[in-house]
């Protein structure tokens, strides 16, 4: 948005260059970030040198029986936080959602981008055995098992795991079913953790992560201790305890009362009340959740792109962020991935324009349009956003009826039925957002966006080795979505974490689900 949007929108050529410049800037940012992952940034912010020792207690919302230490079954934030303490992935996402090497030290493609050689670093599991190519192949084959339903299975689908092989102890050659320029994203996929070859039982799991297992009671607590031989340097903390408190008020009270030192997932109201008051520290992880309305582009009224554009212009994003997110977030521009690698931040910011919206609706023969907006208490801000948007739409004569759905089956209910629904997404690379939601073959295509030419652009990007050229293809895809896509992205919500004042080294930039989020090996207590 700081690229001077006005002239760009009039000159497509300029716009393109503007984007490339932005892509370059993002690239530089990525380089700078690589240089200072770890303690440096937070150390500066918090002051002081890391101190060794102590126990950190972290409160998360849990899931009772659903909770598991099997990292491939991880489903909840608490599961993932525990999994990343015990295990490693080959790669993980930086703050801009680009893949960073973890257990892998390098990845090299062949000319066709369908064969990648990954070298592993020297790392040991908690039982002392080294992490080898065999462990990697075992882990991925377990995830991809057709008889199972592991969450990362879809992410690993491009891999041909029967043809992939261990070249030597610490080299894996991955064979892919088609060219995959974004192969590193796959190594960083949600839940793609490396477990020792042959592991089936996770009651006392052995991983290569910064902490070793001590005890676990599903729905209550997990206790881990420092792994001295961790390849990325042993954690500062002696012990790490994960505690489950499902109510936000309970997590906050436990933090205020000194029963925990870290409380995950607090509300914007809590953040406002306690920010800068000196009792606890509030950490806002920006751009963690995309907030949007999903329009089904294959059925009336949204099969007419003019109606979609009218809806883009109906939304007053500032009001939505202020009301539905209590101000804890930024406005969106109908594109996924603000602040992430390849995000098209050169496109002009959409502003509310009810008159033009009315005009577009008239042209589309949709005056006095009535739409049902599906919502549910399944995610923070959904019901509020629906009510606010209903009032905004009324200004252009569109009657929105808000329908409340069950929160336990909301995502399935809204996948194929209805025409308009509240939608949100956690952080993931742009490429994953495209492949999971916007291709003809996507299995969770909530906007029913199915276009052969768009699919072709995606394939083209995946066959493009050069990063800048690939960025240009992504820019084209995003321009298309910006003008006529099905996602009305109105905001990006902060993810709010509270810590005791004694806690240092908590990263303040990493969106939820990235490497430095809920990462406790870099944290210390004063």
């Amino acid at each position: 948005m700081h690229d001077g949007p006005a002239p760009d929108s009039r000159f497509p050529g300029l716009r393109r260059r503007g984007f490339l410049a932005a892509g370059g800037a993002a690239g530089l940012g990525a380089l700078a970030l690589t240089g200072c992952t770890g303690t440096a940034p937070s150390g500066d912010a918090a002051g002081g040198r890391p101190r060794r020792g102590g126990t950190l207690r972290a409160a998360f919302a849990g899931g009772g029986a659903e909770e598991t230490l099997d990292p491939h079954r991880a489903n909840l934030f608490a599961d993932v936080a525990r999994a990343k303490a015990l295990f490693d992935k080959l790669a993980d996402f930086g703050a801009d959602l680009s893949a960073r090497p973890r257990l892998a030290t390098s990845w090299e493609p062949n000319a066709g981008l369908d064969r990648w050689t990954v070298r592993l670093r020297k790392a040991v599991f908690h039982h002392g055995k080294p992490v080898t190519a065999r462990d990697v192949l075992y882990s991925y084959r377990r995830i991809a098992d057709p008889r199972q339903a592991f969450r990362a299975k879809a992410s690993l689908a491009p891999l041909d795991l029967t043809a992939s092989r261990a070249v030597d102890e610490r080299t894996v050659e991955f064979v892919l079913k088609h060219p995959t320029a974004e192969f590193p994203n796959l190594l960083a996929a949600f839940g793609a953790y490396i477990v020792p070859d042959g592991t089936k039982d996770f009651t006392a799991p052995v991983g290569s992560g910064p902490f070793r297992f001590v005890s676990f009671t599903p729905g209550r607590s997990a206790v881990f201790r420092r792994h001295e031989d961790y390849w990325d340097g042993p954690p500062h903390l002696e012990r790490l305890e994960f505690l489950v408190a499902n109510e936000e008020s309970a997590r906050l009270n436990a933090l205020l009362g000194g029963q925990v030192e870290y409380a995950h997932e607090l509300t914007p109201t809590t953040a406002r009340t306690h920010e800068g008051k000196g009792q606890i520290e509030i950490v806002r992880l920006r751009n963690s959740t995309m907030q949007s309305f999903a329009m089904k582009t294959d059925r009336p009224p949204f099969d007419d792109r003019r109606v979609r554009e009218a809806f883009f212009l109906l939304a007053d994003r500032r009001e939505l962020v202020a009301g539905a997110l209590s101000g804890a977030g930024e406005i969106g521009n109908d594109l996924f991935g603000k602040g992430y690698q390849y995000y098209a931040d050169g496109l002009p910011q959409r502003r509310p324009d009810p008159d033009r919206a009315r005009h577009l609706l008239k042209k589309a023969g949709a005056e006095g349009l009535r739409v049902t907006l599906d919502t549910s208490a399944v995610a923070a801000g959904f019901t509020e956003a629906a009510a606010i948007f209903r009032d905004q739409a009324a200004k252009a004569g569109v009657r929105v009826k808000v329908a409340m759905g069950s929160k336990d089956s909301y995502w399935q209910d809204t996948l194929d039925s209805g025409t308009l629904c509240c939608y949100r997404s956690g952080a993931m690379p742009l490429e994953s957002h495209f492949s999971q939601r916007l291709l003809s073959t996507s299995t969770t295509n909530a906007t029913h966006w199915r276009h052969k030419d768009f699919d072709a652009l995606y394939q083209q990007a995946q066959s493009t080795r050069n990063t800048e050229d690939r960025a240009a293809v992504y820019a084209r895809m995003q321009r298309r979505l910006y003008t006529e896509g099905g996602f009305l992205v109105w905001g990006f919500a902060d993810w709010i974490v509270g810590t005791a004042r004694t806690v240092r080294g908590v990263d303040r930039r990493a969106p939820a689900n990235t490497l430095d989020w809920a990462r406790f090996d870099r944290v210390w207590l004063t």
Partner: protein
Amino acid sequence: MTGLRPWLLRRLLLGAGQTVAVVLLVFALTEALPGDAAVALAGDQPDPARIAALRETMHLDRPAAERLVDWAAGLAHGDLGSSLVSGRPVSSYLADGFGPTLLLATLTLLLLVPLAGGLGVLAARHEGRLVDRLISAVTLGVYAVPEFALGVLLVTVVALRLEWLPPTAVGHGDDLTAHPAVLVLPVLVLLSRPVCSLARLVRAGMIDALAAPHIAHARRYGIPGARLRYAHALPNALAPAAQQLARTVDWLLCGVIVVEALFVIPGLGTVLMNAVAERDVPVLQGLAVVFAVTGVVLNLAADTVIYRCTPRAGVAA
């Protein structure tokens, strides 16, 4: 005492029928809820192929009636089945959740009965005078405050401002007895409303009983005041209170969700909430059995007490 045994038998049979009805109802209602365990687990990744695979691994692809029959067959052997989501036996869920719930219920009851009885009798003795009015005003006032509000208030003032007690029981789910301080506030909240309702019932029953002709008669015989109150009047006052007490115990044993959530106590209420959200039918049915049996047994016990205390009142089966 003639007729107690056949009456008991009749009531037990009825109770068994009620339990079966509750279990069937819970099964039917859970099936009627939108989505199943596979949908709930898939969450915001509702990939149809994944949901189908999950359904297959959970055996949800079999007809509902067949699953119910299988479960009932297991129940006949004392097997409550296992969770759809984790595969752990349902009995372990119930055992895990029952500990904290039972502890809270017992502590609450131990305090509730003497406190409510004492307050009720005290108020009745001073009917219409200052003590009675004070007790009535306070019990009415406290009764009007919902548990949640009282809990939040107590946590804010007693735990966070005064720092006398820990605000939650987070992290102590397995060893609550080792940290009795974390139990004070939850028990206080659980106690608040039952004490009030029970004390008021005892007071009303006591006033009625003290005014009854047989008490006046006993008084004329010169039976001393304390014996008159506790041996002759109180049993009559207990009939309505016993039923209220049974209801309270039932409420306590079925897991008080508000208190569990506020103070992070992993009891049966928490198990229930999670099981509903996960559509974990076997766990829900296990809970239904436990709750139904608890309800039946407690009400039967209450009715038996009434039967013994006031034989004249008769007992409706």
